[in-house]
């Protein structure tokens, strides 16, 4: 390995499953890695992105060229580790600058064994993914570099995202409790399908004691905590594989317990109601997405990280086994369903991230909406 003042010179190559490749330099750990190539357009919040369990088995391409400028601190991670399977940046920082930073991102990636690549035309790669859709990718650096045919074969041998059941791989294995901040008002059972740390915190701030349960939790496990409301979190993978959580969700709906879902949780609600889910061409990943709340007409700028979406009719109320349902939120960029709500019982979900982290706080009101549902139920 040759290291100059301008950072590592270890060569790296990124190979897409359709054969296009990019040559750059190693970033983070040296070696090889595979995953689904997706791009994220957020200009801030790389620490949150890297530690978001929904990015499990994905190689994330950062469209913002400078990454790592504020280093790494101990407060901003959204989970216990970095989940992305690979990281692609253009211009990594050489020194971090922030009063909270304790180490560099490069060090952190290397320490957690995350293979990355830097110095490539990330915009060209992003445009490629936009036109051809998300696809499998491999990053190879140092000794892992071989001739491109060999590398391409390895990429093609890697598993697909479609049909992947990943929630259990990222979720907690043991239940734990996040106590309410201040006076406790409600108990919520939160099914962890890849939950981000900020989500229980947003609930705790509103007087909710959050019982975080493993992805494998059964309906009985959920009801055992005697919840005022049930929450289904975000998480990685294909919702079509999530039969377990869908069954739990149906049980909750039967009981008419107030219910709130985010991201994967929204897809599960969709499936529980009988809607289909499908894979988007290249997904929504960023913190600038305009979503309209159809009940108020207002637009919120929101954080997104989803490759799948619910297939529900936009302009009609649908009849479901749990009463009437409608699409409550829609993305104004492409009319993708971003939220569902039941009209006859207290249940709703959104496809995006009201807990933000990273991203704007515009949608934080949804946690208040959840609280209102629980209050109404109690009254």
């Amino acid at each position, binding site marked *: 390995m040759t290291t100059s*003042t*301008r950072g590592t010179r270890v060569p790296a190559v990124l190979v897409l499953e359709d054969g296009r490749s*990019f040559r750059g330099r190693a970033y983070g750990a040296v070696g090889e890695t595979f995953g689904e190539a997706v*791009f994220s*357009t*957020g*200009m*801030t*919040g790389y*620490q*949150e992105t890297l530690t978001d369990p929904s990015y499990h088995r994905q190689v994330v391409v950062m*469209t*913002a*060229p*400078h990454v790592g*400028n*504020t280093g790494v*601190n101990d*407060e*901003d991670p959204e989970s216990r580790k970095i989940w992305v399977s690979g990281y692609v940046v*253009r*211009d990594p*920082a*050489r*020194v*971090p*600058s*922030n*009063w*909270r930073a304790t180490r560099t991102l490069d060090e952190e990636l290397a320490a957690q064994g995350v293979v990355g690549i830097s110095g*490539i*035309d*990330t*915009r*060209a790669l*992003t*445009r490629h993914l*936009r036109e051809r859709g998300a696809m499998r990718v491999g990053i190879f650096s140092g000794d892992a570099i071989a001739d491109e045919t060999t590398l391409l074969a390895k990429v093609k041998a890697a598993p697909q995202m479609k049909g992947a059941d990943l929630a259990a791989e990222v979720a907690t294995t043991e239940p734990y409790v996040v106590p309410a901040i201040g006076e406790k008002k409600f108990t919520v059972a939160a099914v962890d399908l890849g939950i981000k740390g900020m989500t229980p915190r947003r609930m705790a701030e509103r007087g909710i004691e959050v019982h975080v349960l493993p992805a494998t939790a059964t309906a009985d496990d959920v009801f055992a905590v005697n919840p005022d409301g049930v929450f289904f979190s975000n998480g990685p993978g294909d919702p079509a594989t999530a039969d377990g959580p869908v069954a739990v969700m149906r049980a909750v709906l039967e009981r008419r317990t107030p219910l709130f879902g985010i991201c994967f949780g929204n897809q599960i609600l969709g499936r529980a109601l009988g809607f289909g889910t499908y894979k988007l061409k290249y997904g929504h990943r*960023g*913190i*600038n*997405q*305009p979503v*309209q709340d159809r009940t108020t*007409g*207002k*637009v919120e*700028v929101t954080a997104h990280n989803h490759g799948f979406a619910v297939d529900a009719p936009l302009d009609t109320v649908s009849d479901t086994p749990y009463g009437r349902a409608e699409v409550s939120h829609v993305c*104004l*960029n*492409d009319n993708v369903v971003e939220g569902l709500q039941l009209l006859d019982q207290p249940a709703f979900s959104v496809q995006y991230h009201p807990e*933000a*982290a*990273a*991203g*704007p*706080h515009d949608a934080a009101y949804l946690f208040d909406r959840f609280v209102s549902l629980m209050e109404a139920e109690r009254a």
Partner: protein
Amino acid sequence: MPKRTDIQSVLVIGSGPIVIGQAAEFDYSGTQACRVLKSEGLRVILVNSNPATIMTDPEIADATYVEPITPEFVEKIIAKERPDALLPTLGGQTALNTAISMHEQGVLDKYGVELIGANVEAIHKGEDRDKFKLVVEEVRKKIGHGESARSVICHSMDDVLKGVETLGGYPVVVRPSFTMGGAGSGFAHNEEELRRIAGQGLTLSPTTEVLLEESILGWKEYELELMRDKHDNVVVVCSIENFDPMGVHTGDSITVAPAMTLTDREYQILRDVGIAIIREVGVDTGGCNIQFAVNPEDGRVIVIEMNPRVSRSSALASKATGFPIAKIAARLAVGYTLDEIPNDITEKTPASFEPTLDYVVVKAPRFAFEKFPSADSTLTTTMKSVGEAMAIGRNFTEALQKALRSLEKKGSQFTFTGPAGDKDALLREAVRPTDGRINTVMQAIRAGATPEEVFDATKIDPWFVDQLFLIKEIADELAAADRLDVDLLAEAKRHGFSDTQIAEIRGLREDVVREVRHALGIRPVYKTVDTCAAEFAAKTPYFYSSYDEESEVAPREKPAVIILGSGPNRIGQGIEFDYSCVHASFALSEAGYETVMVNCNPETVSTDYDTSDRLYFEPLTLEDVLGIVHAEQQAGPLAGVVVQLGGQTPLGLAQALKDNGVPVVGTSPEAIHAAEDRGAFGQVLAEAGLPAPKHGTATTFAGAKAIADEIGYPVLVRPSYVLGGRGMEIVYDEARLEAYIAESTEISPTRPVLVDRFLDDAIEIDVDALYDGRELYLGGVMEHIEEAGIHSGDSACALPPITLGGFDIKRLRASTEAIARGVGVRGLINIQFAMAGDILYVLEANPRASRTVPFTSKATAVPLAKAAARISLGATIAELREEGLLPRSGDGGTLPLDAPISVKEAVMPWSRFRDVHGRGVDTVLGPEMRSTGEVMGIDAVFGTAYAKSQAGAYGPLPTKGRAFISVANRDKRSMIFPARELVAHGFELLATSGTAEVLKRNGINATVVRKQSEGTGPNGEKTIVQLIHDGEVDLIVNTPYGTGGRLDGYEIRTAAVARSVPCLTTVQALAAAVQGIDALNHGGVGVRSLQEHAEHLIAARED
């Protein structure tokens, strides 16, 4: 909910002349807004006194009033046009203040005009420091973040002195309320500074109010641009981080978008605070800009201020993101919501989103301290820069280096050769923020400074400091490498090194580096500014270069014309040139070409992606232009490159472009040389039998003296290669000549000094003309009000000429034609003549669009720049007459007798500058241009037109009161008649003893006042300077002798600036002012739109 149906007509107020702190960005914003409103079917009425703007082109609004932006004139316009609404948020502080004052006077109520875009309460909450503090407190209560710097509001010097104690001592920041560009604000480190800054601030503030604040010097500074609609949807369009920490006005800082050194948590705090503020202030259909300071040690956030309107930063943010803030603000003002407005760039997504960038934008300010040698060049919270360049790169280093070379100023690029200097001395120097501090920092790094030392000296964020180290390390590698291999060269280009920098480091010629680079296959690619980091396909070809893999320039079929813009605004090369470039783009697009604009000035209309078919936001250096030419030649046929409309910048590239095989259209590089080279031009004149003032060149004092002795004093001396009259001086005697030669650093054996006979008392005349090789179209003849010797850019002028007869015009026409033919012009030429003793001397010729083209075009209702662009590409004047672009017959030399008179007046930036002792800089006009902008007054007769020009430039002429007169001996004769007229108009005259004596002998009574040098009299009689300071003088006439001026004159003139009293520094201006006062006192000054003037003129032409 779509557009409001209850508004059919809107009055838009522009920002008036270009001044420091309020410049071309408001033409960009205003033009966008007017176009949008017009396309919405509204009748758009515009008032703007600045003729050099696209927004005052007659086709942009329905009724365009080039009238002074004062409540009096705007009321006249309202009374005449009866608009339903007034949109005041697009014309800077000028428009906002005018609108507020009209609201307060009840004018808006009287005529039933609704203020849209921002309501009065919101404007007050945003701009009034006291109220804004309450806003911030309220926000903190609601969301727990944001606070104001601890501060005290003061209305008197006593308040101010007490305030410092309350804040816990010095340093403190002084900020006057309701001034633009931070005028009058600054840091006070002790009582003396405090008294001076706060004293002036109290005067400048229309509410006699200043704010004293705790010092947050050295904190990180950020800005957010926000927009909000009537449904309370809010988006943050852009975040901007200042490279220079707190203490330097954001207009004078190097700024970066997006913010580079914030975590998401910290950024979201700023965003939350910003949104809460725009809501609390109540901006509900428009945009605002909010500035923050962040303590680098703990993240404490202080809200500095907000502007409830479109601003310089919003123009920058629009160019940086592709999100057109002004355009959208105008739509919001008439009732749309953000989600109803499409994103122009993607066409399929809405404007209710936040742009995300996959590139870095750097803006660098351009200063003009060389024009004001006595001014203190320390950067403070008062803006001093006169222009800016923006650059886009795929990383910070690339964008920064592009921005620095875009400044087109000697020494603005980093240099890595030669001795760096003493590290400690450089670090000490870097403590003081000033023009080029970043270069000092780079030299300190070269001299061995550590990152910590640089941070300690400058408080520039460590991440930025490291980027400078990165650049320096690459320079070291370039210097140390055995040869330029592909990896190293590509790496250097990826970090923004220009071919010239690499050449300098390697000891090669620039063209050799370029050849090597091309041989190695290293060329820039062009990426698109698309608002969304490639998430959606972009429809708008808005490009920037980068050394990356994939280019996005699409092939095209139509022949393209590349128009080179004029770069950053500077004194001598401003918005007027942008105007001509934009016109060329419009005209050539209409003629069937694909127009490609190249420019790096974010303030302008030319860099609006709507202006041309393609926009390259790039520096205007040979290397960058050649890159674009190559890319466009790959894309399709290239008809040529237009270099003659963007001022000296593109003109200077003409020969090199031609040498590189680029088709330069219009006037050929050889012809340009014939006009610019003194010897060659002398030949042209000799062949045409035209006289020029006697002249010679010398490299020593002895040589210069010999020439001066032969041609006689006074002489005009200047270095041989200057722009805008740089270093030019009128020398009246040998002693001064010797001193000039000794002082000038620009004179050497290879750089001679030019010595010209100075034509005392000559009338100076400017001519703009078109020539196609056969026919001459005389665009306009402008007669200067001030005599020859005052730079044409600083002189007022009248069109049509007010004292020239038919015979003179005939001579001017013949001379102009002879020169245009002799030089070989194809397009525009500007010639300056001086008429002395009935001889018409040729002073100089510029084979390009001049500063006066927009003025001439507006005064004569003929689009000269459009015609020039067409001629460049082969059209003839006869064809253009046939087409109707030019009048069928006649030209600017044959205007009908009842054509309106237009007066152009220059606007000077005196009030912006102080010397190191805090005193004002002298205001005397000279051969070196120092004005930043201009206004136009147009009316049926000269007096009224002149009065309007003064009202537009400096405030209305007084129609009664006390006039102080003190003139140099040589002016005493010509002063008598105008002085008598002033008395006839009821003025009381004050004069110094010498002038009073002359007046008395001519039967005019004048009260003798004490000179400053005489001090206060025994009975407390005030000196003239005290009288001016106390507001007891309404008009000042003070002409200097030579340059430099006597101390008294200096004190008088700087006092006049401080008190904003009209101050005339030439007797010609006095004569014109008297005509203006006469017109005002005869009442009935009306307003008339350019469209009405044009209609009248066209009708008269056809008679």
